[in-house]
């Protein structure tokens, strides 16, 4: 078996060894609880606040605009449910995007059960939200709009600056799940008037199990978890200091290296896209042809099914993702692909490659050595693909 090829960075990223190094002392020597009044606790407080400032700087925010959570899912829950509950006197209507991560759609369902009205904006064929369509859904009762910065699945980048501009002065708050975009696109809260922004630590090669929520000064939230009142009362629970120091280190590295890392990743991705589209007949690129994350290539192959592709790639030591229903718990195909206008049988044949910090050009060679043959083999077996 040749060395494993990992092109599924959107699912999970390895923690950068420099981050691990920075975290280690906080497990053993500097283990304090920031709430304690003794000197061990004081040192923990210092490390916690210094880390908060570094994460805030990563997105152009003030330190007191950032709180730590257990990850992006919690940040999204706190942003939507916390904002809706705290501001329901102003209205009961929330707008989310149809193309967003399943965790957002399920928060929407929860809010509906809790008595809020939730509208969903459909994307265009490339997975992009048209700000005008969003605006058409705003009513006097609308309090919050939530749109992901980019799709973790098909890579399409949303016109966040335009949406933020459109909402300015309307009194409607904007939440953005920035997890797929962080470290790959510039995110600056001084430049773009977003009110709430979700971040994940692992998505910038920090430790999993930690996230952050940016809350613009003046934006009012209620907690969704009750406890000791940490993180300004918004997120109770003793702060996991080692993880937080890790995220801060990861943010510093991402900020320093983005300018060189992103073009390198984009070049690899471009090479894969042109190799696949030119070598494999009846293959298509899903998502936006240009307005997409630099690390994302999402293909659709006619006549074959994604889980079979995935298993065959796995046998060759290549780790990738698919939007096929058959690889999901619910047996439903990816709602993201469906919302772009694909039919179920088209969504079944998708394969997603995501590149990252440790990807190598040789991995593309390996993919192109085996992928055309796998597609051919599965098509020969398929009653849906006839070459006549």
């Amino acid at each position, binding site marked *: 078996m040749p060395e494993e090829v990992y092109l599924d960075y959107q699912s999970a990223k390895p923690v950068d060894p420099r981050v691990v190094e920075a975290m280690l002392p906080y497990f053993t020597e500097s283990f304090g609880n920031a709430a304690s009044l003794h000197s061990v606790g004081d040192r923990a407080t210092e490390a916690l606040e210094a880390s908060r400032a570094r994460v805030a700087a990563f997105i152009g925010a003030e330190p007191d605009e950032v709180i730590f959570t257990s990850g992006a899912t919690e940040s999204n829950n706190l942003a939507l449910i916390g904002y809706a509950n705290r501001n329901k006197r102003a209205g009961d209507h929330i707008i989310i995007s*149809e193309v967003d991560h399943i965790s957002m759609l399920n928060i929407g369902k929860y809010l509906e059960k809790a008595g809020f009205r939730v*509208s969903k904006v*459909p*994307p*265009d*064929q490339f997975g992009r939200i048209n700000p005008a*369509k969003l605006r*058409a*859904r705003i009513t006097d009762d609308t309090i919050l709009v939530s749109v992901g910065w980019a799709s973790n699945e098909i890579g399409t980048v949303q016109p966040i600056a335009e949406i933020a501009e459109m909402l300015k002065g309307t009194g409607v708050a904007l939440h953005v799940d920035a997890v797929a975009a962080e470290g790959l696109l510039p995110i600056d809260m001084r430049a773009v008037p977003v009110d709430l922004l979700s971040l994940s630590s692992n998505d910038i090669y920090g430790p999993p199990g930690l996230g952050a929520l940016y809350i613009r000064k003046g934006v009012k939230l209620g907690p969704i978890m009750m406890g000791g009142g940490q993180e300004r009362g918004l997120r109770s629970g003793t702060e996991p200091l080692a993880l937080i120091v890790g995220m801060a280190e990861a943010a510093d590295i991402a900020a320093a290296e983005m300018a060189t890392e992103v073009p390198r990743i984009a070049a690899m991705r471009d090479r894969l896209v042109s190799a696949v589209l030119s070598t494999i007949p009846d293959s298509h690129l899903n998502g936006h042809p240009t307005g997409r994350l630099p690390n994302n290539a999402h293909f659709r192959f006619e*006549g*074959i*099914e*994604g*889980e*079979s592709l*995935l*298993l*065959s790639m*796995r*046998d060759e030591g290549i780790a990738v993702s698919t939007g*096929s*229903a*058959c*690889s*999901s*718990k619910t*047996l439903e*195909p990816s709602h993201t692909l*469906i*919302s*772009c*206008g694909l*039919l*179920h*049988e088209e969504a*079944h044949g998708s394969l997603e490659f995501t590149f990252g910090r440790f990807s190598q050009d040789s991995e593309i060679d390996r993919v192109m050595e085996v992928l055309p043959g796998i597609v051919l083999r599965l098509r*020969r*077996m*398929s*009653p*849906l*693909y*006839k070459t*006549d």
Partner: protein
Amino acid sequence: MKSTQYSEKTLDHFRNPRNVGTLEGDDVAIGRVGNPVCGDLMEMYIQVVDDRIADIRFQTFGCGSAVATSSMTTELVKGMTLDEALGVTRGNVADALDGLPPVKMHCSNLAADALHDAIKNWRSGKKLNPLTAEEVAGVGSGCAVPAVTVIANADDYLGKGLFRQVDDINDLSEKRTLVLDRGPASAKLALELTKVTPRVVFLTELDTLGLPEDLSGEIKRSDVKVLYQARLLSVLGEGEVEKVRIHDLDEDNDYELFVDAVVLLEA
């Protein structure tokens, strides 16, 4: 479902499927089950000699377990009498593979059903032809005139993505467009539209294209995506066309398709 939950035997049949292919001849019958919408479509080809399955081949579009169950079924029943083969169940196939993940038991374990269908077709003398690429969503020989269904709320969207006539195809430039089958004029329009937009879906209630041969040939060779046995139920959207609700006449279920425009030519 995690692929790691497949047994070694299932993975072996997925990696090295037995008896892939098709068979031809007077002593061959074909069985077919599944629907590509659900991600599974299987065909079983049996050659029957003296009431026994002398040879067997399969074609499968589907996930790992769909391929493995097809392969295992062919191994199990080769050489059996037809009655014996009719006694082979989905459960037997799953057992022979050392089990399947629970979530896969129903959706991707259709191979025994395809085999039974082939035997039934052999006994009744019904001849299925292998599918052509364009017929994948429909089976049989429809030749009726497309029925004109009234879409209840269509006129609410007139001028907002719903077209009763198209004067300038550029009005549909870059739009995901659904064209309802209203005969040759609608099919010609669908072909025209592929010049201005990459996504044209032609929706017909028939199980085959009920069009003049040259025109249906042209449709099949084009980028028009044909949805067979599909009935438009309603148009959905906030202020403009955003999606449609479609009834799948074959599977008897409803689903939504995201589109920007719907063309309903006057009948």
